[in-house]
């Protein structure tokens, strides 16, 4: 129970941090760190997929309302939440997933890094493709995906390393 409350408080702080600081923390419009993905990623694998996807949608919607990009983050995070289980099962067995927290400490460095890499890549590609919907400038798009992927990957890894919640939620 303590962990759940801790998780909720951390989530709210992350969301505020995302919309107030991180969304503006970019280099000439590139390299935006999407730290709020951690909230969805950290949800226990034992949690119902439906709840995970719903949470993903609403978290995305909140970020959208703050940044006036209605539907963009919502669609990308819904997809992110939907892809979480299949991608996790790529790297570990169903049994191990149920028992361990999805974090650096819970899964071990090699598995967690692989998982994080795949998930962040999926998110960055999907969100920039959604944004570029009608607008095509391939080099610019690839640069945005690449830089945001790097910054997101680093910031989530660093945040997870803090290990604020020790056990499975």
């Amino acid at each position, binding site marked *: 129970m303590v962990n759940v409350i801790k998780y909720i408080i951390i989530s709210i702080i992350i969301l*505020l941090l995302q*919309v*107030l600081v991180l*969304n*503006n923390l*970019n280099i*000439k*419009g*590139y390299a*935006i760190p999407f730290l709020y993905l951690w909230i969805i990623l950290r949800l226990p694998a034992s949690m119902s*997929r*439906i709840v995970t*996807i*719903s949470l*993903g*949608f609403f978290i*995305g919607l909140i970020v*959208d*309302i*703050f*940044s*006036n*990009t*209605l*539907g*963009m983050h*919502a*669609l990308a995070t*819904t*997809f992110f*939440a*939907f892809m979480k289980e299949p991608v996790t099962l790529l790297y570990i067995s169903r049994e191990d997933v149920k028992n361990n927290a999805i974090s650096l400490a819970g899964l071990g460095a090699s598995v967690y890094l692989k998982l994080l890499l795949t998930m962040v890549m999926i998110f960055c590609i999907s969100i920039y493709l*959604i*944004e*570029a*919907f009608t*607008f095509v*400038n391939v080099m*610019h798009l690839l640069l945005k995906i690449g830089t945001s992927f790097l910054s997101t990957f680093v910031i989530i890894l660093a945040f997870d390393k803090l290990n604020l919640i020790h056990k499975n939620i």
Partner: protein
Amino acid sequence: MRKLLQFLIKRFPFLIFLLYAVISVVLLVRSNPYHQSVYFSSSNTFVGSVYSLSSNITGYFGLREVNQSLLVRTGKLEQELQTLREQLKESEYELIQTKNTLFRDPKKSKPTQVKNAKPKQTTVVDNLATNVTIVEGAMENMIPDTLEEIRKIEIWETKYEFLMAQVINNKISHYENYITLNRGEQDGIKPLMGVVDHNGIVGIVSVVGPKYSVVISLLNTKLRLSAKLKNNEYFGSLVWKGDDYRFAVLEELPLHVNFEVGDTVVTSGYSAAFPPGLIVGTVEGVAPNKNDNFHALTIRLATEFARLNDVQVIINNEQEEQHVIEENAKK
């Protein structure tokens, strides 16, 4: 039937995903920069107050630079004011001179003219004298008498008012960027008003909440703005291409137009949002262009979008009238 149910249960997460995805896509496609919902944008009171709180802190960052550019701007305006004052004085002097030559000299011949016009009238001399002064006064009123009167007319004719506002949220990283201001309906802000800062133009108001409003930034690929070259009055359409936030492109400029790098680009005044002559930026060079019949120029924007802080909203008292007329003309 059972198989269908089994299928649905097995695929339930996917169906939920599909449902949310459809909702998101509908939101995404329906969102138009000019018609957004107050509840789903940062003009709503909750989001606005969160941004307001954080801008209370971040608003102090970079004040040194803002101060510097304001000082430069004040200096320029002071210079301009000085030259305008001199011009006004000269023209006032000329005005009085022409007035003297026009009206004071033929004064002596006037009574006879009036007499000729009314030959049958047999009035006393006093009455005639007042008649003359009335006629003379009416003619004199057509040209303003003193500097005071000239100033009064100027003020009466300005239809633009400026309202100070603070930027509480500003994005430059998306293709469609928006700015949130700490002023709303209660302060008299309405959609489609123009927004400028001390360097140049910033954008156009789109959604207005009770206390906060959202501005379509000039850095929004969906915003097109009419702008012209200051020295030859040829106009084109200014649009941001979604890459570098310091540059925009002035399109649809006739091919025969001569320009030089460094030429100033100003608003044309054709849209009701901005008065003519506000600085947009300077010509940087020729932009790649698909249309062979027109020029496209890269424009270095005068406004520093990465560092917006205080802006002014332009209230145009005749904007509504212009919109009604333009809408009627389209029908």
